[in-house]
């Protein structure tokens, strides 16, 4: 039985059309056409931004309504300003993270696994040759599974590359397995 036939059914489903927040993935039915190129999803970052903003606004409203409990109106003003500044800083950091993720691409070819992003005229590329890949690990918590993304850690401890916020990670892992199996067949 070939490596491709042993893939789980989920890995050979029809190509899906995804919304802009979840990245883009292209692959054929029955087999994984290489190169596979995908972008990380920013959905979890947007969720975190919504949570942070809600918590910040909630904390400000609470302090405003219970000023005496925090030591009086003067201290309440200090706390409100501090919470506001912290909320803005965290939202800004998440926004930067979302921009970086949107400008990141993951590419799997017969020869390499590559992570690349370009920001402010600066390009960062991390590439691992396919013939040195020895392991891959899919990490997906319950929340990540609910939101439909995960992290693929490739070659951990051996010159690793992490593909974070990967939409439909099972499919990408399938493509990775194809690359590893093809390399093994060639070697044999």
């Amino acid at each position, binding site marked *: 039985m070939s490596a491709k036939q042993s893939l789980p059914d989920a890995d050979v489903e029809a190509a899906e059309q995804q919304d802009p927040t979840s990245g883009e993935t292209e692959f054929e039915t029955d087999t994984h056409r290489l190169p596979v190129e995908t972008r990380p999803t920013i959905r979890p970052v947007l969720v975190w931004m919504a949570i942070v903003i809600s918590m910040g606004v909630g904390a400000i409203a609470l302090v405003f309504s219970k000023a005496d409990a925090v030591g009086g109106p*003067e201290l309440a003003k200090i706390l409100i*300003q501090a919470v506001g500044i*912290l909320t803005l800083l965290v939202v800004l950091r998440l926004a930067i993270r979302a921009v970086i993720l949107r400008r990141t691409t993951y590419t799997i070819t017969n020869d390499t696994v590559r992570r690349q992003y370009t920001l402010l005229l600066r390009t960062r590329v991390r590439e691992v040759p396919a013939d040195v890949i020895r392991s891959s690990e899919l990490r997906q918590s319950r929340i990540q599974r609910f939101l439909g993304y995960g992290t693929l850690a490739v070659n951990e401890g051996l010159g690793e590359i992490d593909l974070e916020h990967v939409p439909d990670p099972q499919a990408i892992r399938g493509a990775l397995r194809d690359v590893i199996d093809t390399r093994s067949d060639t070697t044999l």
Partner: protein
Amino acid sequence: MSGRRWDATRIEKLRRAVDLLVVYLVNLALYAGPLTLAGIGIGSESTVPDWLLVLTGGERGPVLLFVAGFVRNSAYLFGVTVATLLGIHLAVLVTLQSKGVMRTAYSVVYSTSIYLAGLFTVVWYLTTATGVHNARDFVVNVQVEFIYRVIDLTGSEMRFGLARPDTLVPGEFSLVGELSLALLLVLFVYYLYSIYLGTRLNHDAGRFEGVVTVSIVVLLPVLYVVGSIIAAGITNVPFYP
């Protein structure tokens, strides 16, 4: 062969320690320089020790005052950084997460120290600026009240040089005072977060161990005050932290 590899590892560790020290000293100069230029830490000529005259070739005047202020600011920042390093590493040791003091040093040099410098700057500004006297008094009152609360907790009848404040907030804060206090609080939160993140990333600690480390660092001032109370009780010297 194994002995040579062990020596190479030692040399590599030493090289990394020297690199880290150089980075820290450069950062220290970058923090202390602008502070001194802004007038923070600069006193009168009478407060300048004579040995500093060697650095200025015997010249008195603005250069000497600047050098004295720079040395004073650097010493304060260095002292606070060392205390933070020891405190964080002690906390990491207690939680059995330590992977070596170098990892703690990396975390302190590259992230925590910048927030310490920020805290130091704001406190110095409140101490020396005009128009923020209520904010300044509030910061002092919080510290005094904290010490009295610890004394109350220990049940000690310790004498303390400063009177307990009747109220924490002496009066309405000016806008600059408000913003300074808000910034102080934000920097303190980021300082604690940098300790948490440094513990998790550099010592591969879990979330719980990270939180415990931060909690221990937060409790260190309490331990310091308790220790001072005990020492004052043993030596019969009045407690004046």
